[in-house]
């Protein structure tokens, strides 16, 4: 299955996308197009590499790859200027490198921590936020709020694009 982007000479596609950027968009247009391009490339690659079956195992494995590709594409589109995107890129890279045994050890230690935390009476919202935002554990509170705002904006863009792609493919 040939990747469709190769049919369009790279320069013309870039010029086309550059002209799209000049239209007024509420969210950052460069980030949106960059994410879309990366994500579509990843989807094409997943489609090439994964078996085409509709079995539950294959669907869930594809689903996991698509999810990781979405977060990774968004983090790459944002680049290294945000702490959360840097943390996300590191996490995705480590996930690829990490061997199975190491991953199991990390899973067990996380599970133990979750069990210990389950009995804590009051859920500290700040700690919860630090857990949700990538790289949130090692930021001061001010930085955490800034990064959260940017992270939310990027997440909404990501969801918007993913939904549009899914709607496009379902027609």
């Amino acid at each position, binding site marked *: 299955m040939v990747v469709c982007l190769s049919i369009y000479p790279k320069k013309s596609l870039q010029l086309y*996308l550059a002209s799209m950027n000049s239209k007024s968009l509420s969210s950052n247009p460069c980030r949106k197009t960059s994410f879309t391009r990366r994500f579509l490339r990843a989807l094409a690659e997943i489609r090439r590499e994964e078996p085409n079956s509709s079995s539950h195992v294959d669907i869930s494995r594809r689903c996991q790859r698509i999810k990781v590709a979405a977060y990774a594409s968004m983090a790459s589109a944002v680049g290294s200027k945000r702490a959360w995107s840097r943390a996300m890129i590191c996490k995705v890279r480590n996930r690829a490198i990490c061997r199975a045994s190491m991953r199991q050890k990390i899973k067990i230690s996380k599970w133990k921590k979750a069990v210990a935390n389950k009995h804590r009476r009051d859920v500290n919202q700040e700690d919860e936020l630090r857990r949700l935002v990538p790289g949130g554990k090692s930021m001061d509170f001010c930085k955490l*709020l800034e990064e959260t705002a940017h992270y*939310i904006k990027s997440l909404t863009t990501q969801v918007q*694009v993913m939904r549009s792609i899914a709607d496009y493919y379902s027609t």
Partner: protein
Amino acid sequence: MSSRRSRSRQSGNSRITDDQINDLVSKLQQLLPEIRDRRSDKVSAAKVLQETCNYIRSLHREVDDLSERLSELLATTDTNSAQAAIIRSLLM
């Protein structure tokens, strides 16, 4: 945040002022759909934090659902159709 009570007297040592935090919290408030629609000035910082956590969790859930949907679609559709057309329709 309309009121600017200076509590910084009590926490004199912190370089991060309360005003700075209030600014950031109000910026966050603008992003949350629930609180933004309610148009209330008197939302406490704790409520904003809580809504933020809920909102991020719901966004993560949406990404999960969309990934599952895309995973099922990827098997059945033909991705040879112009990707530029997708990008065009997305950015309109």
